[in-house]
Structures are given as C-alpha cells and as structure tokens.
C-alpha cells in the first residue's frame, strides 16, 4: 500500500482530531450553542448537561470525580493556575517549591515568575534515563516546602516518572506538601489515576489526546480539599477557580477524546510500542552510531528520540521534508543552545544537535514506519557523506581532541 505524504510523526506536539470526536462536537458548534452558565432556558441546560457528561468521561479516564475538574484554555493555563494558584493560597504555610529541570516550559517559566515574587524553587536533576527518583524529590523537601510539580511523562524523550512513588515519598517526609502532576503527555496513553497516584493537582490537555486545541483542565482534589487562588477573575465559573464562559464544544470533544483513549488504551499502546520498536530496530540495524535518548523501559508508547551522530538535526529534518518530526537541535533559535531536556539527561551538546524525535500516534501505520526508516537511512547516509565530522571519525580522529572555534 502506498503511503500518503506528508507523514505526521510529531504526536507529542499535537495530535489529529479524531473524526469521532469531531462528530460529538458538531451539535455544539451548530444548533446547541447555549451558554452552560445560562440557568433560565433549555439552551443553557443542554450545554450544562453536555459539559457534565464530559466531566464524567474525563474523570473515568483520570480517576477522581468530574466535579473536581476546572476547565481551562489548555495545559499551559492549567499549569499556571496550579502553580501560581496554590503558591498564592498557601504562601503563609511556606515559600518553597520543588520541580525538575526537564519539565515543560509552562512549569519552568511559571516557577521563574514565582521566584521573582519571592518564592524559592528547587530544580531537581534527572537520572540518565530522564526520570526523577522518589528519594531525590523527598530529600529536597524542607520545612517550608508547599508544592512539588512533576510531569508524568516527558514530551521530548518520553520518560515516564514514578509519580505514585514520588507522591508517597514526599508525603511521608512532609504530609501537607501538595503534588501537582503535569500529566499532559501521559494521560490517555498510559495508565494514570489521580487517586491511586495520590496527587493533589493534575494538568491535562485535549489536543494531545486526539481532541480539539484550546481546551484543557486542571484537576483539583476535593478530599482533602485543595485550595487555589484564581488567576482569572470574572463571573465565578468553575467554582470561582476559573472564570470565563465554558468552551462547550471543546469540552464535549475533550470528553469524547478521553472516552476513546480509555477504551482503546491497552490495544493502541501495544500497537504503538510495536511500531516504535520496529522503527528503532530497523534504524539501528542499518545506521551505525545512533543513540537512543531517554529510557527504553519507562517510556511513552509513541515516543522515540534518536541521535544520529555527525548529522545535524535540522539539516536532517530538511531532508525528511515529507515527514513531520522534530529535533533537539536549536539551530532556529537565537541562542543556538540545543535542547535543555537532552542536556539535563547528560547528552553532550554535539549529540543533542543530532537528535530527532519521532512521535507516533493513533493514525500512524506500519507502512509509514517502514517508509520513514528507509528515508532516514538514505538521508543520514547522504548527509554523512557531506559531514566533515563523519570524515574525521572515519579517519580515526577523536573529535574531542580538536580545539574547535566556538562561534
């Protein structure tokens, strides 16, 4: 079967809206346009019922109750609300926050903002496989620690953190520390339950799980009750934690997306693992000097991140023009610094510049994987012929022995 180009293999960036999700949303984009906060007529009641159904669908995937969900515009807002909201509410209790160096920018930049506001933030290192160990987190807890924010799975290297064990270790050390989990990449892909994991706050996003863009949620524990100060004030929607008219079609799509992820998780996860392992095995069999970034054991099913030594990542992406992937090289950014996530894993700068992330998803096929493997093998071979570093390596020159002219 011929594959259709271009191939989308960047599913940690965003995912395609599932047609079944769109179908569920359509009535709320057309005839059922009511405001869920309108209490005086059937348009409002219909919208509110649809939102409540979506709450149940999401809670069924995430654990906890649908009443504990606060809908937002996306995970960046959820994370900001969780961190800034909890920090503000519990500032009398303490001013210390713990997070990890490989977190998403939404977390890191919210933490930087809090540092400017007088909070102290500890940015923990990760193991070589990209994970953070429970003891590392618990050891960082001090007398005035109020909040720990850790991601379920990393967006670049797919490493899955032991969230339940981290939460347990932290609470054993200090009972009232709140745990926020950025569950964006993991939820819907791997088993995760807010109750079993004993987290207090969890951020999720619809568009990472085949739902629409522009809608996310923050799960806020009710028993024992976790409080946050809102960052958006207004009509008091979402129990005052997030004002603003609810995005009813988006939320309906979010609910349907969650329902589908739950129903298909086991089978779909296994299928993606098979495709991922095939991609890696074929690439490693055909191209020497390739290195996997992140853990192979504790990894998102759809993520593979490989460094192709001596071939710059952006140059390689340009050659893979019919395949949408991403790179840890930062040739396009003004800083020229490669991925901070790869650097935190201890990947050298020169290898970080050669990394490609393959993000497999629900709509990828084995035929696409085979096509991509063939293309990658061809292009890496061609670009190595063009690479002075590959030439030196072939001649037995140790690249580390050379004094480079950094620019």
């Amino acid at each position, binding site marked *: 079967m011929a594959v259709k180009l271009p191939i989308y293999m960047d599913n940690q960036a965003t995912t395609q809206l599932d047609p079944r999700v769109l179908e569920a949303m359509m009535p709320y984009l057309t005839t059922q346009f009511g405001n869920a906060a309108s209490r005086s007529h059937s348009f409002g009641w219909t919208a509110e019922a649809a939102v409540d159904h979506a709450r149940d669908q999401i809670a069924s995937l995430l654990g906890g109750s649908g009443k504990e969900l606060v809908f937002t515009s996306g995970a960046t807002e959820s994370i900001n609300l969780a961190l800034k909201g909890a920090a503000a509410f519990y500032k009398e209790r303490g001013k210390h926050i713990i997070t990890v160096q490989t977190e998403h920018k939404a977390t890191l930049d919210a933490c930087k903002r809090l540092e400017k506001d007088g909070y102290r933030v500890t940015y923990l290192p990760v193991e070589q496989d990209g994970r953070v160990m429970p003891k590392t987190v618990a050891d960082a807890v001090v007398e005035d620690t109020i909040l720990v924010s850790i991601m379920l799975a990393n967006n670049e290297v797919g490493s899955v953190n032991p969230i339940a064990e981290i939460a347990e270790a932290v609470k054993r050390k200090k009972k009232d520390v709140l745990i926020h989990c950025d569950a964006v990449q993991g939820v819907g892909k791997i088993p995760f339950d807010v109750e079993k994991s004993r987290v207090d706050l969890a951020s999720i996003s619809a568009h990472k799980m085949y739902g629409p863009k522009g809608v996310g949620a923050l799960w806020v524990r009710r028993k024992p009750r976790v409080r946050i100060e809102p960052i958006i004030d207004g009509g008091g929607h979402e129990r005052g934690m997030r004002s603003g008219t609810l995005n009813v079609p988006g939320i309906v799509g979010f609910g349907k997306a969650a329902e589908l992820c739950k129903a298909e998780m086991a089978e779909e996860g296994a299928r993606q693992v098979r495709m991922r392992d095939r991609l890696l095995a074929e690439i490693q069999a055909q191209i020497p000097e390739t290195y996997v970034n992140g853990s192979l054991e504790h990894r998102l099913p759809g993520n593979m991140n490989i460094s192709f030594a*001596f*071939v*710059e*990542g*952006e*140059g390689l992406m*340009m*050659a893979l023009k019919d395949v949408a992937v991403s790179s840890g*090289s*930062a*040739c*396009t*950014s*003004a800083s*020229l610094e*490669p991925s901070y996530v790869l650097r935190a894993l201890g990947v*050298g*700068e*020169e290898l970080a*510049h050669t990394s490609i992330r393959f993000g497999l998803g629900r709509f990828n096929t084995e035929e696409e994987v085979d096509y991509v493997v063939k293309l990658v093998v061809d292009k890496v071979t061609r670009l190595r*012929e*063009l*690479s*002075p*570093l*590959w*030439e030196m390596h072939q001649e037995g020159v140790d*690249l580390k022995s050379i004094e*480079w*002219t*950094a*620019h």
Partner: protein
Amino acid sequence: MPYSDKVIDHYENPRNVGSLPKEDPNVGTGIVGAPACGDVMKLQLKITDEGIIEDAKFKTFGCGSAIASSSLVTEWVKGMSVDKAMELKNTAIVEELNLPPVKIHCSVLAEDAIKAAIADFKKKRAARAG
C-alpha cells in the same frame, strides 16, 4: 520556517562536495565552527602559484542554510584571486540565499571558512619560503 528556493537547491544539489589532499602545498584547508554549536564547515581551496583559486571543495555539518552557504561560496570563489576572495562578505551570502536573521551565523561561518583556508595556504607558503 520555510527555506528559500536557492537554499533548497544548494541543499539538495550541493556543489563541490568532497575533499582535496590536505598535504598538497597548493591546498589551503579551513575548518570552522564546533560540533557543540551545531555547525562545522570544512572548506578547501586549491590555489595556483599566481594566487588564483582553481578548485574548491567543502563538507559541512549543519542545517540546510549552513550547507547551502558553504556550497554557494565554493561556486563563487572558483576562478577568483585570493585577494578578491578575502573581500567576500557574509552579507553577500545572506542576500543571495535570502537567509533570515536566525541563519546569519551560517553566512558568517562561510566567510570565516574562506579566510581560514586562505590563511592555511599562506602559512604553508611562508613555511615553504622560509
């Protein structure tokens, strides 16, 4: 970020890829950049005793714009005198390839590679004369 047609052309059909014998007294080799920065260019120029560049070869580790910049300068310098080649400015590369601001460093690297190769050639000649 979309690439210009000229960058794509040089990237897909790079001119003068390869190596010249490093030991040849008429060959100057310039290697600039660093793997940790994501760009390394190797430019080699074969220069006649009269100071005319008769051949140029390159190999580049880098993004499409870096590869295109080095490919372009190998085309430009062939047949040029050393003095003329020393006057080549990165801005001419930026203009020809329509490079966006974030890619200007690629053109700077190509200019540096020419200068480094010529410096290597001059060093060799001085050593020979001395």
